């Protein structure tokens, strides 16, 4: 997993609550056997005017000119600003995969759905929860200035760039540690390599039938 330490990028405002995982990545794209390549279909039904099919060349499809990520001023956005209950719906890990593949690795919202929130950390995406007033402030910042950028510093727990000054945020220390060091669960478990090997040695003696010769 990519470490997440500091990120500076254009911030796009998605002004709707209860954005569900079906909206983030519609079900017809789950048939893919990959974890990557979902970017062109992120928010597919909002982003395009036609119905998307897997294996289609999305660059030739009619785009919805009003959808926030299609507006020139938010081109190349790396941070997504959203409303309550972002990521509700199914447990599909395809949702964070699609965001990441598109280039968004930080989402700022007043609240997130549980499973989506967890899935983000498994994939190097940082979901930040702020108060409604702070979110409102950031929304108006993005309106005020084309190309508005924020800087998110996970180490210090600070978002800077807002006209209202720095905004502090907090993340549970275990998850923060994993993100800062680019440790997914696997990376973390691999820190225990010597413990696992010791266990295997002991186990091989106690239960040799579980091991090939």
């Amino acid at each position, binding site marked *: 997993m990519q470490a997440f330490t500091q990120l500076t990028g254009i911030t796009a405002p998605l002004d709707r609550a209860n954005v569900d995982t079906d909206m983030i990545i519609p079900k017809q794209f789950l048939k893919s*056997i990959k974890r990557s390549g979902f970017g062109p279909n992120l928010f597919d039904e909002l982003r395009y005017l036609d119905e998307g099919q897997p294996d289609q060349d999305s660059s030739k499809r009619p785009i919805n000119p009003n959808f926030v990520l299609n507006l020139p001023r938010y081109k190349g956005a790396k941070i997504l600003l959203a409303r309550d209950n972002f990521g509700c719906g199914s*447990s599909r890990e395809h949702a964070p995969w699609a965001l990441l593949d598109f280039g968004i690795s930080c989402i700022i919202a007043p609240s997130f759905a549980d499973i989506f929130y967890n899935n983000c950390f498994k994939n190097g995406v940082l979901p930040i929860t702020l108060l409604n007033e702070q979110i409102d402030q950031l929304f108006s910042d993005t309106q005020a200035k084309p190309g508005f950028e924020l800087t998110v510093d996970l180490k210090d727990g600070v978002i800077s760039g807002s006209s209202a000054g720095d905004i502090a945020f907090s993340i549970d220390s275990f998850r923060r540690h994993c993100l800062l060091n680019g440790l997914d669960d696997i990376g973390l478990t691999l820190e225990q390599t010597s413990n696992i090997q010791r266990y295997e040695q002991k186990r091989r003696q106690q*239960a040799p039938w*579980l091991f090939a010769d």
Partner: protein
Amino acid sequence: MASKTLYDKLWDAHLVKQQDDGSCLIYIDRHLLHEVTSPQAFEGLRIAGRKPWRIDTNLATPDHNVPTTFNERAIGVDGIEDPVSKIQVVTLGDNCDEFGITEFKMQDERQGIVHVVGPEQGATLPGMTVVCGDSHTATHGAMGALAHGIGTSEVEHVLATQCLIQKKSQNMLVRVDGDLGEGITSKDVVLAIIGVIGTAGGTGYAIEFGGKVFEDMTMEGRMTVCNMAIEAGARVGMVAVDQTTIDYVEGRPFSPKGEKWDLAVVAWQDLHSDADAEFDHVVVLDGATIAPQVTWGTSPEMVLPVFANVPNPAKEKDDIKASGITRALEYMGLVADQAITDIHLDRVFIGSCTNSRIEDLRAAAAVVEGHQVAKTLKQALVVPGSGLVKAQAEAEGLHTIFTDAGLEWREPGCSMCLAMNADKLGAGEHCASTSNRNFEGRQGFGGRTHLVSPAMAAAAAIAGHFVDVRTFNL
């Protein structure tokens, strides 16, 4: 030493390390894979440049997507008509080849539903931890193993580290005392248990099934019961090891041999809960009171004896329950107080990881022998759980009993259990099914599933509606 439950013993034997926050690193002895939940896990390994930790613990077979018709299967992978199914099956093959993982490919006689294949091969053994990216992994708990389903990220985690980060569950004992009546099967027992404790009754628990009924039960029967632990909300179901277990395991291809076998059998003697072990929760049923079960609704807990009538929401005092009954009756196209034996069927499905083993097929064949499937039925499918089950059934002549009676005899796979291949229900159709889930749309959009035992499904196929298998044929 403090006394322990079977679950405690299995857990302690696999604990690599306990972290300060209570999360534990648990070692995995056997990892089973299939085509649906593994592709992204393999891709994850590739992206991170990681290798599987211990190749020989992994065993794969395609099951969910494989077609079950002879013609499609005869051609091999190229014969799979659905392009998406084909890609998943091909990808599993490619991944297993690339990483050197043993796979029983679609045309291998050992291919089948992963939860049938594991025990059949001796790949899941007493005392093991067994995981698979599939919630019905609890099946393997019948061997006295600690077995549960995992998600795609965890599939990758197990491939890369041979471990999982887990929190320990609580202990529940479900004890069924006494003897089962004539014609009552393990499926009826587990459906009756779910009827009592509910689909969330086991949430947060590891369930051990104990008591005389399970001691007397065959291994295949125990697998049927553990398979449905997840339908009672528990990720883990298990049965203590006894002579029945050891006799079943002996001589299977992956089972230990020679000196290792002798050592294993000694160690396995301890795989039971200590006499004075404490459970956090105990449920007791009397085996003699269990009748043949039929689910009438859209959740496995909506289950009743075959001679009962479906519930009437007007008689239910709890408003939430009443509206649940109303909604289920409506989806199922049933009328309040209707007799279960008056439910007419469109299709019958005998198969799935719950009931597609040789004993299940024998039970179904014994019922249909010499009869004809009701003319009102559109289809009656028999789908063996593995190529080896199929071969055994054919050696016993069961397939001709089925086809003579008008049932279709298919190639092994998950088939109509979840309708990911071409075998599915049409909207509004009623199906007597030996599978494990009767959720809305599970067997096809708008389809209506009734869960029953193989013998009950077979009798229903002949009668065209549900009948009490105990009086059928008298």
